[in-house]
C-alpha cells in the first residue's frame, strides 16, 4: 500500500501479497494509435478462477496531444474513462515517436542511458527536417533563453559519468528519459523500453487521482504488443515457445518466446505495417479503401500480385529469425502466430507454407479469455495493444 503523506513525500507499506500481483481488475488502454481517433480499451477482470474481458471498446481520446517538448507538459488534460472501464487500475500503452523498445545488451542500454534525450533529439531532428521548427524541437531545449532555467543534465555536468545498469523492472530516469529493462531468455540480452521523462510524467497524471481508473502501468505500445499473446491457448499449449509476427499500422515486428520468456524482438527493416500493406493492395489493384478488406478475405479477386511483394520481405526476415531461434536456442516451430493483420491472413499462411513450410495462425486475440456479456470479439485485432497492456499490467500468470 502506498501512502502519500504530502505531495512530495510518499511512504510505501509492502504486504506479503501486495504489489502488481494483486491486480485483479485492470483496464488496458492504447493511446495515440496510428489511424485511430479514439483509444482502444479493454477491461480485464479475474473472477471465478479465470480472466474475463469485462468490457471492450473505445474511449474518447484525451483532450490534448502527447507533449513533444518539456514546454508542452504544463498543459495537462484530465482524462476520465467511460463507466465500463472504471477499474481500479489502468495500464497505458503509448504510441510515441519518441519511445524506444528494443532488444539490447547491457552495454547498449547503458550507452542509451548516457546519451539520453539528446541523442533522440538529434536523431529525430535529423530524420525529419521537413517538419516545422516547433515540431522538430524534441526534448529539452537547453539553449532557449526565453524559457525558465532548467537544471543541466547529468551528462553535461559530468560527461564521463556512467549510469548504473537498472534493476529488472525498475524504472530509472537518466538524462531526460525514463528507462526500464527486463532480462530476456538469452544471456546478456535485455528488453529495454524508454520514453522521454516529460511524456511519462504527462501520462502518469493523465488519469486524475481519486477517480477510477488511475495509471498503475505505463508501457510503450510495442512492449504491450509482445505480451498480447501470452494467454493464447496455442501459446500455452506450446509451453510458451512461439514465433510471432506482429503487424502494426506503421511497422511489422517479429517476436520469439522461449518457455514463456522473451527471446527475440526485432522490427522488420524496410517493411511498413498494415497501412503500407493496404496501400499496396489498393494502389496495385486500383481499389477503394472500403474494398480492400473484402478483396483480402474473399477469393473473387486474387490479391497476390499486390500482397506478395509486401509479404516476401517479411517472410525472409521470419526465416532469418527462425534460423536464429533454431540454431541458438534449439527451438523448432511448425507454425507461427500472425497477429494484427486484420484481413488476408489466409494468403499470408499460403505464402509461408510455400516458402518456409511454416503455417501462420491468426487466432482471435481474445482467445483464452472468457468474454462477459456484451463484449464484441469481432473487433479484437484493434485491441491487441490494449489487451497486451492489461495482461502485462496485471502480471498474469498462465
Amino acid at each position, binding site marked *: 500500500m*502506498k*501512502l*502519500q*503523506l*504530502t505531495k512530495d513525500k*510518499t511512504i*510505501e507499506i509492502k504486504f506479503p501479497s501486495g504489489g*502488481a*500481483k494483486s491486480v485483479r481488475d485492470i483496464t488496458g488502454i492504447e493511446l495515440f494509435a496510428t489511424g485511430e481517433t479514439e483509444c482502444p480499451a479493454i477491461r480485464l477482470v479475474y473472477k471465478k478462477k479465470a480472466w474475463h474481458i469485462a468490457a471492450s471498446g473505445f474511449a474518447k481520446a484525451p483532450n490534448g496531444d502527447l507533449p513533444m517538448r518539456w514546454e508542452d507538459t504544463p498543459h495537462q488534460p484530465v482524462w476520465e474513462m467511460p463507466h465500463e472501464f472504471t477499474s*481500479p*487500475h489502468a495500464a497505458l500503452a503509448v504510441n510515441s515517436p519518441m519511445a524506444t*523498445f528494443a532488444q539490447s545488451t547491457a552495454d547498449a542500454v547503458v550507452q542509451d542511458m548516457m546519451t539520453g534525450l539528446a541523442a533522440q533529439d538529434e536523431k529525430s531532428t535529423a530524420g525529419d527536417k521537413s517538419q516545422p521548427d516547433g515540431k522538430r524541437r524534441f526534448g529539452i531545449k537547453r539553449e532557449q533563453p526565453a524559457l525558465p532555467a532548467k537544471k543541466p543534465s547529468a551528462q553535461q555536468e559530468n560527461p564521463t559519468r556512467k549510469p548504473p545498469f537498472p534493476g529488472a*523492472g525498475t*524504472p530509472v530516469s537518466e538524462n531526460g528519459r525514463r*528507462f*526500464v*529493462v*527486463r532480462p530476456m531468455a538469452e544471456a546478456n540480452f535485455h*528488453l*529495454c*523500453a*524508454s*520514453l522521454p521523462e516529460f511524456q*511519462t510524467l504527462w*501520462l*502518469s*497524471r493523465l*488519469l*486524475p*487521482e*481519486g*477517480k*477510477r*481508473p*488511475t*495509471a*498503475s*502501468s*505505463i*508501457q*510503450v505500445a510495442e*512492449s504491450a504488443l*509482445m*505480451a498480447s499473446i*501470452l494467454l493464447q491457448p496455442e*501459446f*500455452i499449449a506450446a509451453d*510458451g515457445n512461439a514465433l510471432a509476427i506482429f503487424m502494426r499500422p506503421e511497422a511489422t515486428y517479429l517476436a520469439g518466446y522461449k518457455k*514463456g*520468456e*522473451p527471446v527475440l524482438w526485432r522490427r522488420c527493416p524496410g517493411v511498413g505495417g498494415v497501412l503500407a500493406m493496404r496501400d499496396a493492395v489498393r494502389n496495385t489493384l486500383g481499389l477503394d479503401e472500403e474494398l480492400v478488406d473484402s478483396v483480402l478475405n474473399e477469393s473473387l479477386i486474387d490479391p497476390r500480385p499486390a500482397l506478395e511483394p509486401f509479404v516476401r520481405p517479411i517472410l525472409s526476415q521470419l526465416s532469418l529469425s527462425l534460423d536464429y531461434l533454431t540454431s541458438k536456442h534449439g527451438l523448432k516451430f511448425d507454425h507461427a502466430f500472425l497477429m494484427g493483420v486484420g484481413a488476408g491472413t489466409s494468403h499470408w499462411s499460403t505464402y509461408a507454407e510455400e516458402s518456409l513450410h511454416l503455417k501462420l495462425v491468426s487466432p482471435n486475440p481474445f482467445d483464452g479469455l472468457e468474454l462477459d456479456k456484451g463484449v464484441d470479439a469481432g473487433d479484437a485485432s484493434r485491441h491487441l495493444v490494449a489487451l*497486451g497492456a492489461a*495482461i*502485462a*499490467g*496485471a*502480471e*498474469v*500468470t*498462465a
Partner: protein
Amino acid sequence: MKASSFHLNLLKQSETLSSSPVRLRIMLPVGALLACIGLLVWWGVLFTQIVLTKTQAHSIEEDLATKNSAHAEAIQKRDLARELKLQLEQLEYYKSGVRSIGEPLAKFAEIVPLRVQLKEMSITPPMPQVLMPPGLKVPLFGPTENVETQKLVIAGLTTKETPVVSLMESLETGFEKLVTSERKINSFKQDNAEIDGRKLLSFEVEYTMPERRFAK
C-alpha cells in the same frame, strides 16, 4: 508463463495515484485528528463524571451526616412519643378504671332501715402493685394486674336481724356499681351498747365490690 517478464512499466511507484476517492493522505490525518478529539471528549466526559461523582459523594456524605443527627433526633422523638403514648394508654387504663360510687352512695342513705345505725362503711385498700419488679431499672407506669378487686365493709348496730337483712336485700338491686351479690357476714353478735334499755346487735358485712378493670 509469467507476464511480469513482459511488464516494462515506466511508471515509478512514487508516481502511482490512488483511484480511491478516499485519499489516505487526507483521511489519515483527519482520522487521527478525529480520534484525538474523540479521546479528548472521552477523557473530558470521564473527568466530568469523576468530578460529578466526587461532588455527589461529598454532598451525600454531608446529607448523610445531617440526616444522621436528624435520624437520631427522630428516633429520640419516636421513643418519646412511644413513651408518651404508653403513658396516655396507662392514663386511659386508669380512666376506664375509675370507680364511680358517688351515686350509689348517695342512694345508700335511702335504703338504710330505721333500726340500723351504721358505724363504719369502709373500702379495703387494694393489694399493693409491684411496680418495680426485680431486674427492672425504671418503674412501671401502671398496675401490673389489669383487674383489681376491693371489698366494701359495712359495719353497724341494729336492734334485731331483720333490718340488716332488709338492708342487704335493698343492696341487691340498683347498687351494682357499688357491690356485687357476693357478700360475707363477718360478724353478727351482741354488742355492749344499749338503746332504750335494749341490748344492741353489732354486725359487719363484707361485700365484694365490682371488679375495677384497667383496660380500654
